[in-house]
């Protein structure tokens, strides 16, 4: 685990490094040069002041030179800061793209079982929003930090050479503001922050309920519970928010006032007037303080201003790292090719959480050319069992062996080339129908796609769509659940893998689809190995082997006729079911 975390970290930094190094070097240098050059015109004013205020004739050439230098400085500043900002943004784009690609690559390698419906949204947020949140860290912060620190530092040194006493006086507002900072970080503030986050969370979850459950909300009384709950959460949040803001306001206002130009000017002018009237300073020396002194407050202001963004960016980086650190399904160093496609489960145990075994020692052989039907009550471990074949998970103990090779020693190309499955919620991509069917066989020709579609009984429907096989799902046309399911079947048929795993519950969306699947499966000739979670009796009756699962163990196994004749658990199970839905399968009289 530790190794993996470290691994994730290196990946993140390795991906981001070329961009960051360039950004740090070029962006910062350009910005520094530009910002410092921006001081030139102010210095020109100072020189002008000295020349005008000094007794005797004005040195016109010196003044003109100073003005020229000032103007040139402005030009340099414009050029360099624009270049820095532009470059920073471009690099930022690169880094974000690299990060997103790294995330996509990692997510393409983690065990499929790791995904769950709930996580999809969170993961999408990491790839989208969180990567975007890194933006200020890369595109803005370097530049802003340079402006906020380099310029004041240069100004400070310059002012010190002019008059160290007035420099210290000029710094008093900064000191005042810094002294107030601890007040902003009191424990009570911390608590307020937590309350604030909690209240925001309540709003978010009540919105989700309100909006996603809108049909329920509306059908059970228009301005019902969810609406009230949302309003209550909103009111609650607003009051927490205003308390939060108020708690901050006095201290923050004090800080902002201390850093504001009028206040700094009062301080500088008072100090300057005192020193000039006492004869301790030449009047002209006041000018640089009026011009540059105001900028000394920039670092404190910048820290306060950019702090939230930087914090948010850091949290986002943390989440990105977490995802990159998820252990990927280990790929074997020397993949072994399977010999044939006999599947064997050897003493398989599996637990999602330690101590709660879902499968408790399953031994099962699936011979090529046979159909094995898994039946059993819900919670018996059926779904988990079939998900081990396409290696959504690795078994906790024991092994799944395909063609004599442990799945863990099989390269993923071999594995997915051999095992095909229809049981996830159908996921159609927003792409053409042809591409969707050919997803697993990218180089399939249109005639192959059409053949698969025909077998899946969806060809006619596709032809009715505005652009036939080029119809983009979700853009040109939407498909009903059953149609989508048939596309998925066509996809599996085109993949033509020798091992097929199927869950009837999701495969039979409607009578047409069920018929299509049955017909299609019947045409699958040869020595395919099939494993089916069966819900229909005819599937059970037609299977070569039935496996009855209960509580994670196989309680009965054998040929359907034998088992049904035995009057054992399977018979009891099926009778309970048939009596419950007695008339479902009555023959029609057509």
């Amino acid at each position, binding site marked *: 685990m530790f190794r993996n975390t470290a691994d994730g970290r290196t990946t993140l930094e390795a991906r981001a490094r070329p961009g960051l190094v360039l950004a740090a070097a070029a962006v910062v240098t350009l910005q520094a040069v530009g910002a410092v050059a921006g001081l030139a015109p102010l210095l020109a004013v100072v020189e*002008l002041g000295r020349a005008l205020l000094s007794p005797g004739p004005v040195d016109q050439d010196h003044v003109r030179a100073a003005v020229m230098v*000032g*103007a040139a400085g402005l*030009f340099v500043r414009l050029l360099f800061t*624009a270049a820095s900002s532009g470059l920073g*943004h471009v690099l930022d*784009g690169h880094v974000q*793209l690299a990060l997103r*690609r790294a995330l996509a*690559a990692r*997510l*393409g390698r983690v065990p499929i079982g790791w995904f769950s419906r709930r996580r999809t*949204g969170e993961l*999408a947020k990491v790839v*989208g929003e969180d990567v975007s949140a890194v933006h200020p860290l890369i595109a803005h912060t370097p530049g802003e930090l340079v402006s906020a620190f380099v310029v004041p530092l240069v100004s400070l040194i310059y002012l010190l050479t002019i008059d160290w006493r007035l420099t210290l006086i000029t710094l008093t507002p900064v000191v005042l503001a810094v002294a107030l900072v601890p007040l902003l970080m009191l424990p009570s503030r911390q608590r307020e922050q937590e309350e604030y986050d909690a209240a*925001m969370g309540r*709003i*978010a979850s009540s*919105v*989700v309920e*309100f909006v*996603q459950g809108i049909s*329920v909300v509306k059908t059970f*009384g228009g*301005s019902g519970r969810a*609406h009230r709950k949302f*309003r209550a959460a*909103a009111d609650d949040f607003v009051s927490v*928010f205003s308390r939060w*803001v108020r708690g901050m306001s006095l201290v923050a206002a004090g800080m902002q006032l201390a850093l504001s130009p009028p206040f700094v*000017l009062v301080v500088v002018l*008072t100090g300057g007037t005192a020193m*000039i009237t006492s004869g301790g300073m030449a009047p002209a020396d006041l000018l640089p303080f*009026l011009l540059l002194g*105001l900028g000394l407050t920039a670092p404190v202001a910048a820290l306060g201003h950019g702090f939230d963004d930087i914090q948010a960016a850091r949290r986002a980086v943390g989440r990105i790292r977490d995802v990159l650190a998820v252990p990927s399904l280990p790929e074997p160093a020397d993949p072994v090719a399977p010999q044939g496609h006999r599947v064997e489960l050897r003493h398989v145990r599996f637990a999602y959480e330690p101590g709660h075994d879902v499968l408790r020692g399953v031994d099962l052989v699936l011979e090529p050319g046979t159909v094995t039907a898994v039946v059993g009550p*819900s919670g018996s471990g059926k779904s988990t069992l079939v998900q081990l074949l396409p290696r959504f998970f690795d078994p906790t103990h024991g092994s799944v062996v395909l063609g004599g090779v442990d799945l863990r020693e099989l390269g*993923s*190309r071999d594995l997915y080339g051999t*095992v095909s499955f229809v049981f*996830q*919620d159908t*996921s159609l991509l*927003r*792409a053409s129908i042809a591409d969707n069917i050919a*997803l*697993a066989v990218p180089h399939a020709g249109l005639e192959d796609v059409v053949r698969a579609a025909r077998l899946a009984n969806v060809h006619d429907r596709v032809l009715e769509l505005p652009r036939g096989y080029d119809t983009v799902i979700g853009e040109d046309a*939407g498909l*009903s659940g*059953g149609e989508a399911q048939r596309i998925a079947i066509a996809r599996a048929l085109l*993949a033509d893998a020798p091992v097929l795993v199927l869950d009837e*519950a999701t495969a*039979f969306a409607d009578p*047409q689809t069920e*018929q299509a699947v049955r017909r299609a499966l019947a045409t699958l000739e040869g020595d395919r190995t099939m494993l089916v979670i069966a819900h229909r009796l005819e599937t059970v009756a037609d299977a070569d082997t039935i496996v009855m699962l209960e509580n994670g163990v196989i309680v009965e196994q054998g040929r359907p006729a034998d088992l049904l004749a035995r009057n054992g658990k399977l018979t009891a199970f099926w009778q309970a*079911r048939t009596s419950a*839905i007695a008339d*479902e*399968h009555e*023959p*029609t009289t057509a």
Partner: protein
Amino acid sequence: MIRTLLRVLGHEYATPMRRTLAMMTATAAVEGVLYALLVPILRALFGRTPADAWPWLIAFAAAVAVYAVLRYISDLSGMRVGTTMLRGMYHRLGDHLARLPIGWYTDRRVGDVSVMASRGLLAALGVMAHLLAPFISALVTPLTIVAVMLVLDWRLGLASLVAVPIVVVTQVRTARSMATVDAQRHDRDHEAAARVIEYLQAQPVLRAGGRTRERFGLLDDSLQHVERTSRRQTLSMLPGAVGLTLTVQAIFTVLLALGTYLALGGNIGAAEVLTILVLAARCADPLLSLSDIGAKLRGARSELDRLDTVLRTEPLPEPDEPIRPERHDVEFDAVTFRYGDRTVAENVSLSVPEGQRIAVVGPSGAGKSTLLQLLARFHDVDAGAVRVGGVDVRAIDTEVLMARIAIVFQDVYLFHGTIEENVRLGRPDASDAEVRAAATAARLDEVIERLPGGWAADVGEGGALLSGGERQRVSIARALLKDAPMVLLDEVTSALDPLNEAAVHEGIERLMAGRTVVMVAHRMRTVRRADRVALLDRGRIIAEGSHDELLSRGGTYADFWNVSTTPVAGDVG
């Protein structure tokens, strides 16, 4: 922007909003005027009697105090208005969302609105609250300073006045060109987010095709689009930012050169010219910050625009003089309904006498669920009418209509809370005994016994902790408790495990007893118990009658059922 804000908020906020804006403007103006006091101070300090500066300096300090107080008050007022607005916006949005027809809520909208109503709103208002004052001050303070300069020296003042139109034009132009790019960026981000979700959900299939080892084209393309758009965003931002900087700097250079020239020629006093240059330097920073603030305000503005779009979406019209239906028979009278450019229902006529059941069957995509949605008025028909008890549903008050209907959907959404809360939703004032009875009738009691915590068991977000069959049972119990005279049922298509299947079946039978029922049916046993059956295909009714009648007629209806009723059940049993 303020106008959009006020429209979004409703005009009762106009007065406090204007007051705050006025306060902020006054504060910024005082800051500008305060700088004018630099003139006598510097004149004294740079002259022969520096001590003359003291009284002016005291005046300056007093002005700073006034400025501080004004600023504090306007900040407070800004915050107060901000929080009131926040509350107002949340309420307005919430009220409006509750009025929008269910048909409006597509998957994409659900996602958008969820974000908008939580973080989006706050972000938009937060930007307003934080940046409005700096924005106003960045505009007003320099303007005041220009006025001061005009008084001091008309030539230098005029020179700086030139900046005003240029700054305004660059800002407006940038805002305009950025609006397009910003919108593009938003779309691209949206698309990429959708692609990411798609990529995640399609992992099994993608891996089967070996598509995740190389970069997955659809996703990678959209990620690259995002990058390209973001670069375009930067590029189109540059002219505005550079233009602004160039203007400000050029004006400063002009002032510097002109001031120097005038001073060298003895046409202006040293103190005056130096003060003007100090003031000009003072203007530069806030002016330059305009482009940054502008970008952030634009972000908030587009959020407001999205909110505005939602708020402007008209809910289905409510009748002025609603009619309460006296009976509960249902009639579809030549109903046509289009969704987008697809005709989902075409000239559908159906009638269900009170207390009878009609089953709608047909291939997927035939428009079966749409009929239920039209009856519950998720959408309004494009032609024809849907009537309950002889009254057009459009003439019935929505709450009244909803009170008469109990719906059991395929996808059951449960609220995060206990099972009891979710059942009670059916009739909040029901007694405990009634709730228990409904649960027993829906065979939910078995589920409750099994769950740790029983009635108080948490169902998880959206009901995620229960299985599909168990959620169905909760939803049936809810509908039973509601005890509405009409039942709309969308039968689950996917097979449940036998136990749940039986329980759900039993619950639904009890729910339908004695009520007017319109159901979308997939199981023959459900259809056989219906009084009438309508076979729907591509939005049209192609056969109607009792099940046996239709079967004996043969044809499409018999074909439809044949496919799933191969006689095997008789072999076992």
